């Protein structure tokens, strides 16, 4: 089994490597007589070649779909077992998440404690804080790099910012827990505000910093790809540079920018370490950024690596959470797609 699997992987790899540009043409040229770069080739040969390539491309795209199916399959069975233990309505609409006493079989009143609402509220709160930092900073940085900075400066700034995405989350976690959180707590003490030392604010802020490059780099790419003719047309009409950016370039780059923002949001939703370290694990249902909250993914990880039995409701809850999260983000993505289609401007 393992050898055949390795072989499959390897075969895929060869195929994939072969795809690239000129290599592809050369490889295919070897198979098909008469075909070759810039040489006369029969239309038929070209058609076959094209078809092979398209089949390969379809194969590659289907991997993502297969992954999704695999993920659903690996979550759904355990989730079903979870729902035989805990009623699905209690899970979906419960306002209290507290798996602490439900460990034991002889425990009473354990059902109400697996309400997922506080976890999703916490995820939403932290995501909003992070995006409130990353979206404006990232987008403005992208605009500055693409439109104002000299190419030289841009070449330095962009990779520097990209480093932010690669710093291990443990580092951000320590930074959030030991530098940012105490700073906010002291600030709150000085102004008479009760800011918990495990505030959502600290975790969200640091996470926002982490995802700046997701917004800035990807947006920068699409912004600088907007055709120059659009810019020049706009200048020709007397618009200032910032007016051009706001009214011409951004609408043209919108799908890419939204894609970047979505990707950044996804990264925040999936992040665990920073929240565990800076905001703790207490599931409070609150919209107050100064309070401690927890997120869905943090709970999933904590439940999966816990010391409790693996087939207890506690561990199974992790699978159910994963499944629900999957469908919620799916809904969000559908909404985003609708928005993009509505506001997208196609130029050129």
């Amino acid at each position, binding site marked *: 089994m*393992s*050898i055949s699997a*390795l072989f499959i992987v*390897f075969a895929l*790899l*060869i195929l*994939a*490597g072969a795809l*690239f*540009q*000129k*290599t592809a043409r050369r490889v295919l040229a070897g198979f098909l007589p008469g075909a070759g770069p810039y040489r006369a080739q029969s239309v038929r040969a070209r058609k076959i070649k094209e078809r092979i390539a398209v089949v390969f491309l379809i194969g590659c795209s289907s991997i993502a779909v297969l992954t999704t199916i695999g993920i659903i399959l690996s979550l759904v069975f355990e989730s079903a077992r979870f729902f035989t233990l805990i009623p699905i309505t209690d899970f979906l609409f419960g306002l209290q998440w*507290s*798996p*602490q*006493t439900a*460990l*034991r079989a*002889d*425990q*009473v*009143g354990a059902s109400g404690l697996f309400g997922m609402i506080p976890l999703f509220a916490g995820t939403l709160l932290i995501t909003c804080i992070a995006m409130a930092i990353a979206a404006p900073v990232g987008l403005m940085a992208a605009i500055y790099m693409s439109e104002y900075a000299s190419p030289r400066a841009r070449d330095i700034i962009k990779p520097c910012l990209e480093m932010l995405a690669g710093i291990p989350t443990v580092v951000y*976690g*320590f930074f959030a*827990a*030991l530098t940012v959180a*105490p700073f906010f*707590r002291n600030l709150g003490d000085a102004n008479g505000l009760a800011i*918990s*030392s*495990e505030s959502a604010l600290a975790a969200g802020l640091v996470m926002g910093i982490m995802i700046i490059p997701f917004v800035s780099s990807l947006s920068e790419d699409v912004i600088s790809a907007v055709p120059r003719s659009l810019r020049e047309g706009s200048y020709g009409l007397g618009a200032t540079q910032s007016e051009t950016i706001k009214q011409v370039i951004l609408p043209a780059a919108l799908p890419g920018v939204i894609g970047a923002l979505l990707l950044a949001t996804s990264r925040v939703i999936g992040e665990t370490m920073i929240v*565990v*370290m800076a905001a*703790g*694990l*207490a*599931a*409070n249902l609150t919209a107050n950024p100064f*309070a*401690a909250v*927890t997120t869905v993914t943090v709970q999933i990880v*904590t*439940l*999966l*690596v*816990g*010391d*409790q*039995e*693996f*087939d*207890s409701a*506690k*561990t199974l809850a992790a699978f159910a959470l994963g499944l629900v999260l999957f469908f919620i983000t799916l809904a969000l993505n559908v909404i985003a797609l609708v928005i993009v289609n509505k506001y997208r401007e196609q130029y050129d």
Partner: protein
Amino acid sequence: MFRSTIALGAAVALTASLATSAANARDQIRIVGSSTVYPFATVVAEKFGKSSHFKTPVIESTGSGGGFKLFCAGLGEGHPDITNASRAIKKSEVENCAKNGIRNITEVKIGYDGIVIANSRDAEVANLTKRQIFLALAKDIPDGKGGFKANDYIKWSDIDASLPNRKIEVMGPPPTSGTRDAFVELAMEGGCGKIKEIAALKKTDKNIHKAVCQSIREDGAFVEAGENDVLIVRKLEANPNAFGIFGFSFLDQNGDKVQGSLIDGKSPTFENIASGAYGVSRPLFFYVKNDQAKTVPGIREYLAEFASENAWGEEGYLSDKGLIPMPAAERKKYMSDAKNLTTNIMM
């Protein structure tokens, strides 16, 4: 051009490395399990690997629950040989193991882990009783009229005037943690028994008694801080108001930053925990698949290293790492179990 070269290069490198390390019979012990036992098991594994001609075992840190899940999944090379646990194996897990053909398991207790409540050196040393710990951290406390109310203590001094005039803020492990379970069982339930309203409840309604004794408050006074004890220590250092609950070895290493609180008049020192005078400590275990000792080389030798006085004895190297040794009689029993691979788990 550049790209295709890279792609091809990667492909070549990959095949080369695949070819050199084709899967052959396992000659290395595989261990999974608790993150609490991890720091001790790894020390033994390293010594074992360096001083014998066997390969150093691979030890994964998966949590006790995940460890048992992997351990009980089946016999054979694809499954681990040993799992570490910070709690004893449960009945359902034994059944799961048996269902998958694993009937001969040896349980080896390796020693004790003290659980301490500590705070920053910048604050005063606290002298707590279990009753006070319960009153500070329980979700519901007696309201004095025969019923219960949500815990409304805000400061330690509200519980007892002798305690510091500081806000109750305790960082501890989440409910999925064995440390939390042990803490609840030893400290909270211990304190519970000291309160007569609750003690009375034990006779009338066991379930409510249990729920009252085991629930920890969720209004922010108890902070669920994850399992990274180093982080808790550093948070305590920054916040003199807070207390933290963690393993003894972290207190031992950070004595300049944090100090352990006295519980029922005893301070959490190595001697006090070992003698049992300090009442909050729990046993640590590992479990071995006896059938796999025949096929995987080195298991017996690894067990012999672990169960030697040089390792888990009173002056062994594990005690240097903060593991509290078992009394001599217990060591003897588990040493013989480990040596003979006695199946001591009842199916």
